[in-house]
């Protein structure tokens, strides 16, 4: 099937076509022509007021439930959710059942995602069973195609293990991803520690809980000389520490979940467990610091922090509910709603497309004749309201139902897959 994208503004920060209004003709999954006023022939026409097109977006850390927890999310539903959110590629965390901690786990994911519209890249577990004790067969998983190593939502508590992992992957310039969360300091905390948690009588997760591990991982990255990605930061202190580390030339990168850019802890006073996420929604001041960090390049990537959970794990008293919210379908809109006045659309697209692919050393996406089509279609100016019925994820644990967001994803084109939200 031929597809003609009509009169779309191209957002491809590094390309000469950036900012131009063009038609794009795609045939057999390949870009045939980029020009003005291309004759449609019998191609399917995609057009919309304010339509933008950019290289396909990428999320570096998605929780799925496949294998083992398919009632939360399997590979086909995560692909549907990702495509609805404009992502043509995702990296999948190893926190499944069993954990992706061996070559066969990597192969399982590769084989079972082969026919999906969204490219799924496996992240291998750093420790066996993500238990935080002994390193896995990292080299073997790397050879099999693991794009990075992480214990996912199990933050690596043991500094020695983290160091051994970092040293070991140096042999192939591997990347270790860690979520900074010191469990001894979190001590069963449920939300950001501050005025709001104090008035709610809920045990807090102090910014220190994050900062202390951010600093640890910076030190370990410096010592080992390996690449570390400090995933999903949420506090001003973390931004400051990473900014300094980058100035010092340490090989550290970082990311922030979209939701942590839009909502602060004052939203939690009603004890809505869908707002119980990790990292926790922090203060207004933290959001300002995160925005500044995105602007000056301290923060490289925006993530969806997609954590699908079934109702039985969420529709509970606040302290009993699990941490996490789905995010793939709303990540761009949430980020755009928060950042539209402080970052250009090119800067935002870089954080969800070019930067994550570069970090994982994936081939960059070219918007030129003869390239495989790997595109995201979106309308920044469009407003929309999140509705439960539209959710493509198998889980619907999101605090955003009924909320109006700015920036709408129209769909993706990934090779011959054309997935549109209409």
């Amino acid at each position, binding site marked *: 099937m031929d597809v003609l994208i009509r009169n779309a503004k191209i957002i491809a920060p590094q390309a000469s076509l950036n900012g131009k209004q063009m038609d794009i003709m795609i045939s057999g999954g390949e870009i045939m022509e980029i020009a003005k006023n291309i004759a449609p022939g019998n191609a399917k026409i995609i057009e919309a007021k304010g339509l933008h097109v950019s290289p396909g977006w990428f999320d570096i850390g998605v929780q799925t439930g496949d294998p083992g927890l398919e009632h939360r999310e399997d590979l086909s539903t995560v692909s549907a959710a990702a495509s609805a959110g404009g992502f043509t590629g995702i990296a999948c965390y190893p926190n499944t059942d069993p954990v992706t901690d061996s070559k066969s786990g990597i192969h399982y994911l590769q084989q079972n995602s082969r026919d999906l519209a969204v490219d799924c890249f496996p992240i291998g577990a750093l420790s066996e069973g993500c238990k935080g004790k002994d390193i896995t067969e990292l080299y073997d998983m790397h050879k099999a195609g693991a794009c990075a190593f992480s214990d996912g939502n199990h933050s690596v508590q043991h500094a020695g293990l983290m160091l051994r992992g970092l040293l070991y992957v140096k042999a192939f310039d591997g990347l270790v991803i860690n979520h900074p969360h010191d469990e001894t300091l979190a001590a069963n905390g449920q939300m950001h520690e501050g005025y709001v948690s104090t008035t709610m009588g809920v045990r807090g997760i*102090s910014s220190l809980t994050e900062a202390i591990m951010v600093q640890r991982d910076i030190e370990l990255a410096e010592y080992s000389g390996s690449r570390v990605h400090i995933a999903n930061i949420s506090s001003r202190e973390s931004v400051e520490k990473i900014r300094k580390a980058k100035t010092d030339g340490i090989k550290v990168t970082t990311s922030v979940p979209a939701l942590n850019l839009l909502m602060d802890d004052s939203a939690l006073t009603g004890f809505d467990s869908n707002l119980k996420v990790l990292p926790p929604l922090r203060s207004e001041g933290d959001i300002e610091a995160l925005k500044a960090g995105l602007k000056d390049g301290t923060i490289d990537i925006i993530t969806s922090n997609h954590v699908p959970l079934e109702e039985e794990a969420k529709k509970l008293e606040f302290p009993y509910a699990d941490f996490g919210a789905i995010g793939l379908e709303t990540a761009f809109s949430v980020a755009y709603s928060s950042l539209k006045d402080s970052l250009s659309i090119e800067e935002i697209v870089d954080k969800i497309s070019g930067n994550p692919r570069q970090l994982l050393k994936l081939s960059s996406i070219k918007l030129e004749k003869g390239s495989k089509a790997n595109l995201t279609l979106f309308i920044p100016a469009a407003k929309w309201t999140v509705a439960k019925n539209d959710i493509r994820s198998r889980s619907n644990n999101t605090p955003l139902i009924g909320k109006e967001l700015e920036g709408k994803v129209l769909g993706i084109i990934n090779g011959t897959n054309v997935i549109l939200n209409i």
Partner: protein
Amino acid sequence: MAATSQLSTDHLIGIKQITADDIHLIFETANNFKEVINRPIKKVPSLRDITIANLFFENSTRTRLSFELAEKRLSADTINFSAASSSVKKGETLLDTVNNILSMKVDMIVMRHPAPGAPMFLSKHIDANIINAGDGTHEHPTQALLDAYSMQESVGDLQGKKIVIIGDIVHSRVALSNIFCLQKLGAKVKVCGPPTLIPKHIQELGVEVEFDLKKALEWCDIANILRIQLERQDLRYIPSLREYALYFGVNKPLLDSLDKEIVIMHPGPINRGVEISSDVADSDHSIILQQVENGVAVRMAVLFLLASRR
């Protein structure tokens, strides 16, 4: 005089959500009920035909008895349910349990629960008046109301009065509800205890912090001494009860060393010889037993006022 004759809310989730007018109205209503329960015939028909479920997902003796007595004095029909929290957590969800009970046509729910926010969670999903009888480390509104009511009885209007809350502030729903209630009534509040038991951000609530017990007592008009809640401490926040008693226990020699008399309160149950010595608990300065008596009247007032919104 209360400026209103109706509460501003259908539920009593916390003191945070109610107004000073609500508090005055509850106190005024409690005055009437206090008179009632001192009559030879202590029962009135105000809540006839109202069914109240007392759901206690955490142990309680005095609060449960106090509520039950208040309900019976008002002629309500009552049913009681108690369960350890863990069995509920692992089996049937709270929502299912409560919906089952509501199917039996219950009008009001009095609930104690170990999870902060559980009554608010419930209020969003079910149609019954909910009274929070303590939710984890969040609030215990009727305790704060009866405490403030008893304080007023002892020292008059609380505007400008100085009250110190002593003990485990971080694990205490009583402390938080007391702070909200006393501030709404114009009192000044200080907290005192070992730093590990004082929330880091408590000052942002407009509360002062004092780590020296003697200084705290010298400052205050009323000392509300909290129980050391070892059962709510999953980690060790204090090294031993012995050391706590030595440095934060209120005893007779300490009170005698002050150049004034202060009112002593305790929400119970008392750890005699830990946070408070026996001679202080039983002294003339102590209004601990008046608190218990007032508890029934205040709870009658809350039940009556919420039921009248149905």
